[in-house]
């Protein structure tokens, strides 16, 4: 639950009065152009950034006063993948499992499963510093899910991936939802939001300008896709090209 959330950096307002709720087991898409405030919102909800104003409750806990408890139950795939280049793909994922206190054997089992799911099984013993950009993205996604979080924040998880990897990632996210988990997904890919999200919040200049299911938004605005919805609302395109 997010209520009137505001984040200001000196004279810049990155998030401006954001309010929405996400239900358990839902994939919630935050759609907007670069710089709209999506990542700032994710950072606040995952407890690494304090809001200037407003209130946010995640999994029943306040993001400011109970951030450690929240971190025990969430997984985060940051927009800019952060990884240890001197560690292998497997070691990076197992490290995050250890930091979440996943028992070691269980951590190995989950790591094996995730490596297969993201298509990195064969490359798992290579150092991540030698990976391609797409492989690093997939490693970052596996790092976010290895603790089997109740809620996963996936910040632009498929940027830089080839179409095949992107589809595989979508399947992974759907499978995660089918196990009853919740996903908050930011993206500026229209087709990603349409394919995955149960509901979409469209953000522009830190403000929530529309919130509903993709179908309802398109119907309401007489649009063929969410890009046209965004143009209808702002007069601009979300992105120049995919």
């Amino acid at each position: 639950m997010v209520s009137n959330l505001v984040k200001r950096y000196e004279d810049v307002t990155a998030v401006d009065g954001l309010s929405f709720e996400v239900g358990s087991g839902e994939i919630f898409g935050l759609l907007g152009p670069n710089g709209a405030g999506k990542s700032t919102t994710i950072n606040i909800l995952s407890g690494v950034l304090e809001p200037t104003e407003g209130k946010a409750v995640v999994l029943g806990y306040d993001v400011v006063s109970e951030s450690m408890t929240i971190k025990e139950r969430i997984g985060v795939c940051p927009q800019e993948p952060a990884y240890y280049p001197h560690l292998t793909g497997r070691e990076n994922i197992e490290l995050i499992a250890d930091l979440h206190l996943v028992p070691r054997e269980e951590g190995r089992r989950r790591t094996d499963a995730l490596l297969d799911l993201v298509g990195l099984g064969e490359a798992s013993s290579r150092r991540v510093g030698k990976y391609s950009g797409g492989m690093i993205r997939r490693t970052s996604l596996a790092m976010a899910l290895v603790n089997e979080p109740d809620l996963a924040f996936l910040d632009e998880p498929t940027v830089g991936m080839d179409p095949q990897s992107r589809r595989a990632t979508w399947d992974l996210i759907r499978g995660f939802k089918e196990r009853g988990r919740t996903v908050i997904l930011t993206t500026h890919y229209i087709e990603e939001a349409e394919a995955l999200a149960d509901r979409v919040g469209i953000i522009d200049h830190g403000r929530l300008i529309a919130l509903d299911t993709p179908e309802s938004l398109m119907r309401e605005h007489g649009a063929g896709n969410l890009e046209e919805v965004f143009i209808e609302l702002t007069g601009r395109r979300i992105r120049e090209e995919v």
Partner: protein
Amino acid sequence: MKSQRIRALSVKDLKRVVRDPAGLFMVFVFPMVLTAAFGAAFGNSSGVGAATYTVGFVDLDASQNHGWAEAFREGVEATGALVVAEYADNVTAHDDLLQGVIDAILILPEDFGDSVESFLAHPDDPGMWVNTTIGLAVDQGSMIVGAAVPPMIWQVLSSTLFGEAATSRPFPLELGTPAQVASSHLNQFDYMVPGMFAYAAIFTAMLVAQAFATEREKGLLKRISLTPTSSSEVILSQVVTNLILGAAQVLVVYATAYLMGFRPMAAGVGVAYAMVIVMFLVLCNVGFGLITASVVKSSGAATGVSFIFILPQMLLGTFVPSSPGLAKFVPSYYVTDALTSLFLRGAPLSSPVIMMDLLVVAVVGLATVVVGIVVFQRYGRG
């Protein structure tokens, strides 16, 4: 504070050192090469004979107990590393030192013999002692002379006065017969080795500063902060990592020095003590590293700024010659001093000098790491 997290982070950091050629060089290869190079240059195998330095001996002792001055001079000659050239006056000796004829000057004061006798007569009553100072001048143009000669002279003096068994005790309760120092087996390299243990450890400041600055730069500290890992666990893992590396460095330096001919007294207990005191020096430098990481913006700057802490320790407290007064302000001095007493003078662990050195390094080490943690948590996490 969970051991699983600390272990995982420490293993991650150890792998960085082992897998990164630069880290591997800095932590293991550099101390090994340095020790081996100095051993080759100044050890027994170097071909540098024992009688290498010429010391101008100015004996101004006018007391009735002149026998002590003679015993002392014979002790200097008996080192085998020093050759005595007698001078009638100070001025001539200084002229020769300036012209490079001799490497150092030793000036015995007028009351040298009286001072020794007063000590022998009243060993437990400092009020009855005749306090005096032996003048010592060394060629400042030679780093090696400055490093090697003063500890040799000190050893000769203490052994002449106290005998060999009590050389590290500043106020011995029992005094042996005036004896000649039996240090002819020691060479310049032997006098440098204690400082090399400290020399290797002080670079921890740079490694820690680089590690934190790099992780902050690459978003890794933020990535870890997205997990339920506390900053205390992150810092403690760095402490654990560097303590392990510090212990390994002690073994590397000792093994290399041994291969180069270093044969210290109290070898077994000495290495164990070296590990303990170097651990505290490592702690101190983890603190310096954290402070450095807190004030710099990039990993590149971390390397440069860390030398603010490294250079004074290196120049004042290792085997590099320095001003004794200033040296007492750097923790590495106490490590070098303690290991010199232990390895070269054969002092027991219970001796006041060794205990006091350990206490100083422990207190400074713990205090510095606490300050480092506080500063980093406040300003360094980014």
